[in-house]
């Protein structure tokens, strides 16, 4: 056994040991929110210092001054108008209060990590972890035991355990009395590498018995090319009047080093896949220079080298060759290409590492493969049934890498023929799309932007509605971020988490190497607001924390039904405890 094999074997044994138990996702998300608001406070104070210096200290701090909001809003509209193609500046919609009154009821939560939740035919359905299962339990590794949960009122729930081979399911749908589960077959926990096929399971009795079928996919593991290292896959399922639609994006990653010609092999040589085959690079030419440059950067970070030292050490690397985009910025690619071959030249004429597929069932039982309607490099990140058709949120990584944070929205009446809707120009990542009040709507996830985008009836233009304007006024420091959005038959529901605090101390000096001080510089807490509308104009606003008599926390699951909204809320008890409390809240309205 050579040193590489021995090393790999040793590390594999270390890898198989029990995973270390961390603080758990709840505590980590709380800490992350603290960092986010500290960063925001520090940034706001830094900006204030600059402004004060610029005007000779003549400016008074007025947090959230109306004038400032107007200027910011006008500026934002101008920017959107500049960026939006075609028909001119979209108007910023007006969100008004006075939405439907919701009558709330709550119960201790029983749902765990919830992957899908919705209402259909008067019942709530959820795909969630089995009772008592927690992500943070030592030794707990996905896929976790899961169950189908059902409830008539959203407060009292019953569950049916899923068999182990269905734990990999992550999408749940409902149509014409049938439940649909989408997952892999068998469980990806089976490390044999054969859990690669996509399976739809159908239940006619609310999740107790399932009939499963493997989708007629051609995204099969490549044969005769050695071990598949890993597989990435995005799966989505949507049910609507025209049928049940499934999208699957699959990429296989192989051991590409096996294709390096023997005479070229060495520690400084590596093969990488291209769109059509492989390319082999030799890194040895300038690796020592790179090492000296990297070392100089590290010394400068530690105060032991100057900018001039770095410039001198890195000068040889600055020849205008091919640049690569790393997360440290563009840098010169110093690799030398020593070999290239197409799959055909390698004797793998039919080899295909990437697949993008759609499968449609018109009768809700038998699925057939339908043509992929988007760019070959695109991934469907959300697929929803929208009454008499489908909506898809499509991300094309090739576009994402070079352009703004855009997501394409497409719609289809039959699951086969698709039409791209106008691009959304957003300051946040568009994460949710759906149908509310018979209009197509989309919502982004971001910080200090909470715009709901509404497509006009002609399908030509998106108008953003600024939902932060609906939040109660506050004179101190605040930061808002969108925690979730759902669209359903009765309207649109959006959760905005708002940190509000009093500025009590200046930010602490940051310790070396720390991104944030970690000190509490603002005195306050998070309030989670549920914003609901049935007509996209009048909104009701509820402080979820007050409904549950809890503090801080977050809303990990949200569903909009025919005449009610359900949310799962995890918050701390008012008396203060480290243990988060799980709540289920149902708001029912009439009219």
């Amino acid at each position, binding site marked *: 056994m050579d040193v590489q094999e021995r090393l790999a*074997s040793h590390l594999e044994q270390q890898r198989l040991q029990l995973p270390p138990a961390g603080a758990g*996702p709840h505590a980590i998300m709380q800490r*992350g929110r603290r960092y986010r608001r500290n960063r925001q406070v520090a940034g706001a104070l830094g900006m204030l210092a600059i402004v004060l210096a610029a005007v000779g200290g003549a400016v008074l701090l007025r947090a959230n001054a109306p004038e400032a909001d107007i200027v910011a809003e006008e500026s934002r509209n101008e920017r959107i108008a500049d960026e939006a193609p075609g028909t001119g500046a979209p108007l910023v919609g007006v969100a008004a209060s006075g939405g439907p009154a919701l009558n709330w009821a709550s119960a201790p939560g029983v749902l765990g990590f919830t992957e899908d939740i919705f209402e259909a035919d008067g019942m709530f359905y959820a795909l969630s972890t089995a009772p008592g299962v927690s992500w943070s339990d030592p030794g707990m590794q996905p896929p976790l035991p899961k169950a189908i949960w059902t409830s008539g009122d959203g407060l009292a729930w019953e569950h049916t355990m899923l068999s182990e081979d269905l734990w990999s399911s992550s999408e749940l749908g409902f149509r014409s009395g049938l439940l649909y589960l989408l997952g892999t077959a068998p469980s990806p926990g089976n490390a044999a590498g054969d859990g690669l096929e996509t399976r739809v399971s159908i239940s006619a009795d609310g999740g107790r018995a399932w009939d499963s079928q493997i989708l007629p996919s051609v995204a099969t593991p490549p044969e005769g090319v050695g071990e598949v290292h890993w597989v990435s896959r995005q799966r989505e399922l949507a049910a609507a009047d025209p049928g049940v639609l499934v999208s699957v994006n699959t990429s296989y990653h192989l051991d590409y080093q096996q294709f390096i010609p023997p005479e070229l092999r060495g*520690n400084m040589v590596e093969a990488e896949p291209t769109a059509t085959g492989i390319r082999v690079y030799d890194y040895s030419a300038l690796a020592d220079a790179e090492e000296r*440059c990297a070392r100089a950067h590290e010394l400068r970070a530690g105060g032991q080298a100057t900018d001039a030292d770095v410039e001198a050490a890195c000068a040889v690397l600055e020849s205008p060759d091919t640049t690569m985009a790393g997360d440290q910025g563009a840098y010169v690619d110093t690799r030398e290409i020593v070999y290239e071959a197409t799959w055909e030249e390698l004797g793998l004429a039919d080899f295909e590492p990437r697949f993008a597929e759609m499968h449609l069932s018109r009768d809700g039982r038998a699925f057939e493969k339908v043509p992929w309607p988007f760019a070959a490099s695109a991934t469907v990140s959300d697929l929803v049934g929208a009454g008499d058709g489908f909506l898809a949120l499509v991300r094309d990584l090739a576009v994402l890498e070079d352009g703004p944070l855009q997501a394409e929205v497409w719609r289809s009446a039959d699951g086969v023929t698709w039409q791209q809707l106008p691009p959304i120009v957003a300051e946040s990542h568009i994460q949710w799309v759906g149908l509310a009040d018979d209009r197509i709507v989309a919502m982004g996830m971001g910080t200090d932007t909470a715009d709901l985008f509404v497509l006009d009836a002609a399908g030509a233009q998106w108008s953003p509605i600024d939902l932060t304007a609906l939040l109660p006024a506050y004179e101190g420091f605040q930061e808002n971020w969108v925690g979730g959005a759902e669209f359903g038959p009765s309207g649109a529901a959006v959760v905005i988490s708002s940190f509000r605090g009093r500025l009590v101390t200046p930010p602490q000096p940051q310790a*070396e*190497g720390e991104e944030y001080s970690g000190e509490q510089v603002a005195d306050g807490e998070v309030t989670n607001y549920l914003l609901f509308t049935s007509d996209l104009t009048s909104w009701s606003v509820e402080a979820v924390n007050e409904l549950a008599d809890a503090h801080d926390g977050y809303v990990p699951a949200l569903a909009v039904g025919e005449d009610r909204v359900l949310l799962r809320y995890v918050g701390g008890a008012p008396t203060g405890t480290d243990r988060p409390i799980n709540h289920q809240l149902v708001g029912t309205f009439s009219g």
Partner: protein
Amino acid sequence: MERAGAVIDVRPEFPAFYARAHSQVARALGVTLRDHDLGTEAADEAMARCYAHWPTVRDYDNPEGWVYRVGLNWALSLRRRLARRMPHHQPAATPAPTIADPRIHDALGELDVKLRAVVVCRYLLDWSTDATAAALGIRPGTVKSRLHRALQQLERKLGDLR
């Protein structure tokens, strides 16, 4: 990015990403730092920062790489600060519960932490050269160079022990 035979779903929500990545990154940091408790603390800290930046980090090709680097930088910074404040203090590192190959374990321990980080990314986390380079914020050639040096040193050390 995961090990052989694994299937992953891309662009998960944070709790799912935490469930998938935390133990993997914590273990990798424990091996890199030679201290499993510190590795777990570093993974927690990096995960919190990841959540603070989640709308951006979730779109990275390898968000685990971002978490690994932030955790590693945090832990090394912590050690430097402790060393300055308590120059004669040697913190008691907590090793892995069991050590599969003590000689490899010892030889790895003698590597500079920068070399060990590359070894961990390539052999424990099974990341490509480019993914390792992006995770550590260095160029791909530097990854190859450090890996080459690490393997040479390991071979030399294991040869001495034969």
